[in-house]
């Protein structure tokens, strides 16, 4: 395997007494797209949200084990969660633009991270919108409220917003599940562009999508990582019967 960006070792996660992730160990390759698939409630979203410690905000949750990002366990006590979240960006399932202008949405992350330089902010906003392939659609209405955009545009705006703070990893939680096929296609093309610069981990419910866009695929079930391989192998000759059953749509 190529460069490893994230090494997860014996990772366990609990919501109260519920054991949601069980001894997950997985290496995530840098500048690749890693798809995570599995039936509902298998823990794939929880796993994704563990990588930027978004689960910290849930009361009664507990994490054990290691998630090592660039040689540093992000669950160590001396780690600054805020710094982790800046390095590991996230795009949510339901696009969540803030009720601000398009410009302010993208500039938001820069401003909270203390950037004051107006020219730099302007430059970054334009660059991020271009990288998120939405610049041409919004360049004439940057001061309009982000809610005026269509669903697909809102989601790409959220991607631009995540890009603006220059993360290294981008987590995507079913980013296209609420979008129509055309908008979905745009997001998928965008992901192919983005992996040149970023490490991408994407949770998806859609098997074809995983097959199309991811380089590696991980199959989760009941909180366990069942199988993890190069996507082409995973979808043609999976080593486990249960993976095959899931991929071919026999359950889930």
């Amino acid at each position: 395997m190529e460069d490893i960006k994230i090494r997860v070792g014996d990772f366990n996660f609990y919501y109260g007494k519920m054991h949601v992730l069980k001894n997950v160990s997985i290496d995530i390759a840098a500048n690749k797209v890693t798809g995570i698939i599995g039936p509902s409630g298998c823990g794939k979203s929880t796993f994704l949200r563990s990588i930027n410690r978004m689960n910290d905000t849930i009361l009664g949750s507990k994490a054990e084990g290691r998630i090592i990002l660039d040689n540093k366990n992000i669950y160590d006590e001396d780690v600054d969660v805020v710094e982790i979240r800046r390095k590991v960006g996230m795009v949510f399932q339901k696009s969540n633009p803030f009720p601000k202008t398009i410009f302010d949405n993208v500039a938001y992350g820069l401003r909270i991270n203390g950037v004051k330089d107006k020219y730099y902010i302007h430059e970054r906003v334009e660059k991020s919108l271009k990288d998120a392939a939405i610049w041409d659609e919004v360049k004439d209405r940057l001061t309009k409220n982000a809610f005026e955009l269509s669903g697909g545009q809102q989601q790409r705006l959220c991607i631009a917003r995540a890009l603006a703070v220059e993360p290294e990893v981008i987590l995507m939680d079913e980013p296209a599940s609420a979008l129509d096929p055309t908008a979905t296609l745009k997001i998928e093309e965008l992901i192919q562009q983005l992996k040149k610069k970023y490490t991408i981990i994407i949770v998806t419910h859609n098997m074809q999508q995983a097959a199309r866009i991811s380089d590696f695929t991980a199959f989760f079930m009941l909180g366990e990582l069942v199988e993890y391989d190069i996507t082409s192998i995973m979808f043609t000759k999976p080593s486990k019967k249960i993976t095959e059953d899931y991929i071919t749509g026999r359950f889930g």
Partner: protein
Amino acid sequence: MKIKQLQEILGFNILRLCIGIVICALIIILYDITTKGIGVISWKFLSSMPKNGMTEGGILPAIIGTFLVTVITALMAIPLGMGCAIYLNEYAKDSKTTRLIRMAIRNLSGVPSIVYGLFGVILFVQLMNFGTCVLSAGLTLGLMTLPWTITASEEALKNVPNSYREGSLALGATKWQAIKTNVLPYAVPGMLTGTILGLSRAAGETAPILFTGAAFFLPSMPKSLFSQFMALPYHLYIMSTQHHAISKVRPIAYGTALVLIALVFMMNLCAVIIRYRLRKIKME
């Protein structure tokens, strides 16, 4: 089938009667006060001191007194109430203690206002030695308003979608940054509306200021926060029950009531306008 239709008509009309009674009562009160009070309302009435044992002259000191006390109430209830609400909704864990605190706050809003008055006497007038004055009365009313402010502010915070918080945190915001930049701006209209409604209620209260600072009659305006003051609701109470020539001052009492109602109405209108304008800004 017939019986069902009959029940339907009957039920609908009973409900209609309920709302009718409420509206009638409101209209009768407003009509009565307006027709009897409007005669004495003049610029002179609003801007001069009471004269001749309060049988003539105006109600300026009462208006000023109520205004001052309401300002102090606001200065206490707004920051404290919003702070408590932010803590309870954003920071506090859902434990037995916080549930107990919440319950206590809800129950405090049901405590009779005279009890707040007594409490104010003990705490502000005696223990903290402020004496009976504008400050003590304002703080007492502030305490009384707090449960309303906290509850309204908490509701306003709850209405801000969680995705605003998460989205902000995911970009590397600290918790306070997320609250300050992406929660409060959208909660403030609701917070303010609830608070102003609480304040307008406080402005019309008599019992809490009765022992803490309101005076029967004063020949001059309050000079500092530690002076006694006259207030509209208390003035009204005196004019209608305690005065030596009640029937003679009846018009002044009605005039005072009208001014008080107008004041409360204006404050509530302010709340509506603030909410409307901030909501519009938010949508733009």
